[in-house]
């Protein structure tokens, strides 16, 4: 395999503690995402000055939750993380500012 040939290989951790930790991480992420969705729906029905900013901020958090935890981007090189956060920041700021 190319990964082995270029000496990039590390063993994927598969001990019980790591497995349980990962499952817990997915569960916590899912609960947080559902809670954020409910909070978004509540804020959407409120008449507040900064409600649009709050909705977009919550969308930012949910997006990061899915990308970093479900898609495991947290394990990736910092380049991919910065690119995603940068794109999201620019997009949501543009939508809000317009």
């Amino acid at each position, binding site marked *: 395999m190319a990964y082995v040939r270029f000496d990039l290989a590390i063993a*994927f951790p598969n001990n019980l503690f790591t497995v349980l930790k990962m499952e817990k991480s*997915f*569960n916590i992420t899912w609960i947080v995402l559902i809670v954020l969705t409910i909070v978004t729906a509540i804020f959407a029905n409120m008449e507040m000055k900064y409600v649009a900013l709050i909705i977009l901020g919550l*969308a930012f958090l949910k997006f990061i939750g*899915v990308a970093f935890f479900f*898609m495991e981007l947290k394990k990736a090189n910092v380049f991919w993380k910065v690119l995603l956060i940068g794109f999201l920041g620019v997009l949501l700021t543009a939508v809000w500012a317009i």
Partner: protein
Amino acid sequence: MANTLKIDYKNVFYPPGGILMWIVIYLELVTFGIALVFMALSARAEPEMFHESRLLLNTAYGAINTVFLLSSGWCMAQSVHFLKKRNFSKSRLFLNLTMLGGCLFLALKSVEYYDKVEAGLTIGYNDFFGYYWMLTLFHVVHVLVGIVILALSARTLRKKPETLKVEDYVSGATFWHMCDLIWLLLFPIIYLLF
């Protein structure tokens, strides 16, 4: 070792899911992002029309669909996790639940579309519904493609699980999560913002 995956994700060329899939994801996100910025610009020109049109959307449908996709994404992450452990039965179970979540999303979306068509709120009704139909239908196409990819993985997982490459499976899963990401942009902006 069968249950050992040898990938250094910290290497810039090997993000989880593969570099090609991430290039696709960024291209998709930029495409949807540009359309959403144009939508916001149109809303600035006609704020009242956009606000009144937005109120014609069913926010509950959008929120429930968000829950379907997020739950489906959670199942997908679990499925990948169990595949890496070579626990094929649990991986298959969570993959089927993932596809169920996708199908529920599509079913509710169909109900929503039916309501809109019945009410005459079609793509040509006004600018808001033009954006609504184009963006959400384009997203639905992605969900359909995602379900096909997952169904092919499910077939291999059922018939010859030992031949399924983890990298390929993670790529398919990453595409599925991309559908979540796109929806997490569409839902607040189209259904709640204007």
